[in-house]
Structures are given as structure tokens and as C-alpha cells.
């Protein structure tokens, strides 16, 4: 494949993620931060995000499962999740967190439960997408998922053809 073709496909796929709202401009910032001295930066940060989020989601589940729901505590967790998701550019997760905090303010336990489900869903979605986007850099195995495999191959081929993996600018 031609390098530019590959690059275009890569860009298109990433753009897709942006357009679908999974990722926002902040993610581009992270990509820009990656350089030779920190070649795995994005992967590192994303992994931290996964770890932290899963812990928070867990805490949230437990907190909302209590007899007496402590909204202050829940709000603190959600605030934290909002912070990290916004830092990484996980836009949809962040948006749900905003709604979640409002429900906490209203002390709406049921609403919070629903929101928790929603945030979990969004989290899993973005996690899948991100893993797809990144995994292949270090894991050379062929991935079944067309998207994943496609991206992986794209990157490989771009580099092999002597091109650079395009960095995305702001799409927002």
C-alpha cells in the first residue's frame, strides 16, 4: 500500500473515534506529548487511566450499594473520574460524569444508579477503542477485530513504507 493511503486510513479511523465523540482534543494533546524519549507515553497514560477508572467504578458500585448512600463520597469519586477522563480525552465518559454529579447534588439515589450503569458502559466502550488504537504498537499478534487489525496493520505498513504515523490535530 502507498504510504499516504495508509496514513489516510489511519487518520480516517482515528477521526472516526473523534467524530463519534469517544475522544476529544485532549487525546490529541497526549499524542503530541509522545516522543522518542517517551515512546510509550500514550500507552502508559491510558493504562493508568484504565486502572484508576476501574478502581473508581468499583468504589462507586460499593458506595451506591449501601443502605445509607453517602452522596458526598460518591460525588468525590465521580469528580475524580471526571478529572481523569477529561485529562485523557475520554469525552463521553466525562459527559456522563457531569450528569452524574448533578444527580449527586440532588441526592437522587436511583438516578445515580442509572448513571453509574451508563458511565460503566461508556467506559467499556472507550476502553475497547483505546486498546484497539494502542495495543498493536507492542503486541504484534494479529487481531480478529477488523478495526483493531486494520489499525495495527496500517501503522506497521506506514512505518515500513518509511512514513510517519500521522499525528492528529484538533478535531473539535
Amino acid at each position, binding site marked *: 500500500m502507498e504510504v499516504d493511503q495508509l496514513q489516510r486510513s489511519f487518520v480516517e479511523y482515528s477521526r472516526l473515534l473523534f467524530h463519534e465523540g469517544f475522544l476529544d482534543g485532549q487525546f490529541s494533546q497526549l499524542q503530541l506529548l509522545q516522543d522518542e524519549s517517551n515512546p510509550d507515553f500514550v500507552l502508559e497514560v491510558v493504562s493508568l487511566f484504565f486502572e484508576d477508572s476501574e478502581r473508581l467504578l468499583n468504589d462507586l458500585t460499593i458506595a451506591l450499594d449501601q443502605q445509607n448512600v453517602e452522596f458526598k463520597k460518591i460525588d468525590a469519586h465521580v*469528580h475524580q473520574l471526571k478529572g*481523569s477522563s477529561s485529562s485523557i480525552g475520554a469525552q463521553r465518559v466525562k459527559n456522563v460524569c457531569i450528569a452524574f454529579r448533578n444527580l449527586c447534588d440532588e441526592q437522587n439515589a436511583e438516578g445515580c444508579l442509572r448513571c453509574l450503569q451508563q458511565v460503566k458502559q461508556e467506559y467499556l466502550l472507550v476502553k475497547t477503542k483505546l486498546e484497539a488504537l494502542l495495543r498493536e504498537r507492542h503486541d504484534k499478534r494479529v487481531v480478529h477485530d477488523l478495526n483493531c487489525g486494520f489499525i495495527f496493520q496500517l501503522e506497521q505498513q506506514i512505518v515500513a513504507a518509511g512514513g510517519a504515523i500521522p499525528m492528529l490535530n484538533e478535531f473539535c
Partner: protein
Amino acid sequence: MDLGVKPVSFTSSSASWKSADGVSDQFPAGLRVLVVDDDPTCLRILEKMLKNCLYEVTTCNRAEVALKFLRDNKNGYDIVISDVHMPDMDGFKLLEHVGLEMDLPVIMMSADDSKNVVMKGVTHGACDYLIKPVRMEALKNIWQHVVRKKKHEWKEKDFEQSGSVDEVERQQKPPEDVDYSSSANEGNWKNSKKRKDEEDEAEERDDSSTLKKPRVVWSVELHQQFVTAVNQLGIDKAVPKKILELMNVPGLTRENVASHLQKYRLYLRRLSGVSQHQNGLGSSFMGPPDAPFGPMSSLSGVDLQALAASGQLPPQSLATIQAAALGRATTKSAIPVPLVDQRNIFSFENPKLRFVDGQQQQNINSKQVSLLHGIPTNMDSKQLATLHQSAQSFGSMSMHVHSQASQSNSLLTQMVQPPSRAQILNEINGSHALNLPSSAGQPVLSQAVPNAVLGRSGIENVRGPVFTSVSSPLQL
């Protein structure tokens, strides 16, 4: 910011900075930043961003650990960036600690962008507040806070310690039009005269001032002692050496007192509105916008001055104020609500001359609080309450100063023009005995004219805490 000080000072200060902190001339590269955030994702991202800015980054995810780093290495950091919401310690508490113990610029950050939280950052003395997600552009410029703070500190040292004889002489040159600098110059003038025989000391200071000195923490008690001493000495005679003697605090040096005195004066200048251009203190306290000022929110000593300065203060008003001044009581302000936006205080745009209202007292007190907040004493706003007492005794000082001022007439135009104020002062002083016993408090004048007085270029006498006058309640 132009403080009217000759560029030389700054040059020398940055040169000193180089030797003092070992920061090379690739500044701001190498700026030493301490980042505190319990969110590992954000922490990592910030670290990378800061490194990309060529800063030297230290990270930690707990406030306690951060404090330990700072305490163990007092001069090892230039600036601190801290998250607001942290599990082990509130970010604002950390901010207070850093301000009190290390006096470093602190930037707060949070995903929370609600107004009251940002306001809290301001009132606690944060020099900036960043909303997450933090972008590179926001971090690139944090060095300005370091420079601003250092520049301010160096200016103080230059004034009081005169790093070199040359600088002293330079500052002795004819006062400039800018009141701030001229007053400072004159103040310095007197100081330097007394220091003729201390030139050697000055040179030593020059050397030592380039070295890192342990910072003195101006606690509430210490500041009160300072204020008492200045009060006792009288504005005319409040020189660092004597203040030091009066305070009799072991371990406190004349330099410490001198620089604190300078800060104090700067604070007073700010009150007068002259030092609007001087914003380097980095901790302008502002109260919540909906602070309970009451209907008289516009009323305060400062406003009076503003009015007076703007020429809107009719003679009868002055008389009224004067009368009120006599009857004024020493009050305790209710404090803890620093309400006024300092910019507003000095904007002189407030045309409401409602000083005849008794509520003014409350406002004034409140204003006092906010004004007091401006004092870089590293104090929490709540602690300022205790200062009010001592602050009030200063009223007399200002009176003295004013009376001694020789002033021309057309003062009523702007604050920045000393002459007008003098007139007001004269008018006010006219029927008032100027022997203000310290207990009295010359509220009106003090309040009505602090700006005028302070703004006057010839106010060499105003060494002391004229600001207190502002704190005196104005009862009408």
C-alpha cells in the same frame, strides 16, 4: 508591572537570582516545579507536559508527602502546582501551609470550575487556578508567577537593604512622579542616611542577599509585635533597627524587619490606590461577590478617599466625616469576610458618597478585613481579625503624617496627585487636633484620606501602618 523602580534593580535582581537559585540564563528552562495530584493519570500527563516545557518536575500524589519534600528542601522548588480535591488533605490547606512556611507561588487546579471554588483559590492566595484538563499552553507560562514573586521580593530587598551602595544612591535620586516609588525612595533615603556607617554591612548584605536565607515566617503574633512596635515608635521614627529593638525577637534580623516593613508599606500603598500597578504580592484577597456588605457596600474609608480624590467630596462632607471621626469608636470588625475586590476599591469609579450612613462602620470593618488581607503577612484571612486591634491604633499615625504634609491645593483630582489630597487633609485637619492619641483613631481622616496621604509623593513620614486608619470604623 511598573513600580517606578529603575530597570537596574530588576537587572541586578535577575542576576542575583541566577546566583541565588542556580537558575541558568535559559530561564524559564529548569524551573523547579512540584506537582501534587492524587489522580495518577493527570499526574503523569502533567509531568510530561512540564518536562516538555523543559521544567524540572517532581511529582507526588499526597499532600503530606509534598510538604515533606518542601520542608526537607526549603529552597529546592520554585513553584507548586496542586490539585484541589485530594483525599489526605484539602488542596487549600496545602496552599496555606506552603504560603506560610515556604512562601512559594502555588497554582491550584481542578476539574471543578465552579465560581466559588475558584474564588476560594484566590482568597487563599493561590497565584493562579487552572481548570482540568490542563493544556500545555497553560503550563508554559507558569514561570511568570515565579518571576513576579521574586521580583517583588527583590524590590523590597533593594529598597531596604540596598544590595549595593550604588543602588542606594540611585534610589536617592529625585523622586519620580509615581508616588509609590518616590515614597519608597524617600523612605529609603532616610534609611540609607542612617546606614552611612553601615555601608560595610550593606555590602555584606549584598553578598548574603544573593545567598539563600532562611525565610522568616511572619506569624500573626510576630506581625502584631511588629505593628505594635511601629505604632510605638511613630511613623516618623519607625525604622527597621528600632522596630527590631522594640520587638526584641531572638533570631530576627534587621533585614527581616526591613523587608517586612517594605511589604507593609506596599500594602499601604495599595490601599491608597497608587500601587494599582503593583500587583506582585500575588495574594490579593477577594471576598465572595455576594459578601454581606450591606447597602453601604460602597461606603468605606477607601471610597471616601476615592470620592475625595475625585473631587466629589464636598467640604461639608468632610466636616461631617470629621465630626464622625471624633465620635468614632474603636471597633472590632466582624471580619472574616473579605468582600471587596481590591480593584474596585481603587477604581475610584464609585460615585456614591453615602458615608453618612452608620452602616459604614460595618463596611469599613469589612473593608479593613479585605485590605488587611492584602498584607503579605502570610496570614489566613481569619487570622486577620486579631490584627484589627493593633491596626486601629495606627489611625493616629496617619493623621500625624498628613498634618505634616505640606500640600498644595488642587488635590481633588486624582489619587495619584498628591496635591489634591493635601488639601483635603488640610481641610480635614483644620478643625481637628492632630494630636491623635493612639487610642483614638482618626477614622474619618484616616479613612477618608489614606489614599490621599499615601498617595502623596511627599509622604516620607508614612512609614507606619497607615492602613490601620482604614480599619478604623467610621461612625457617623
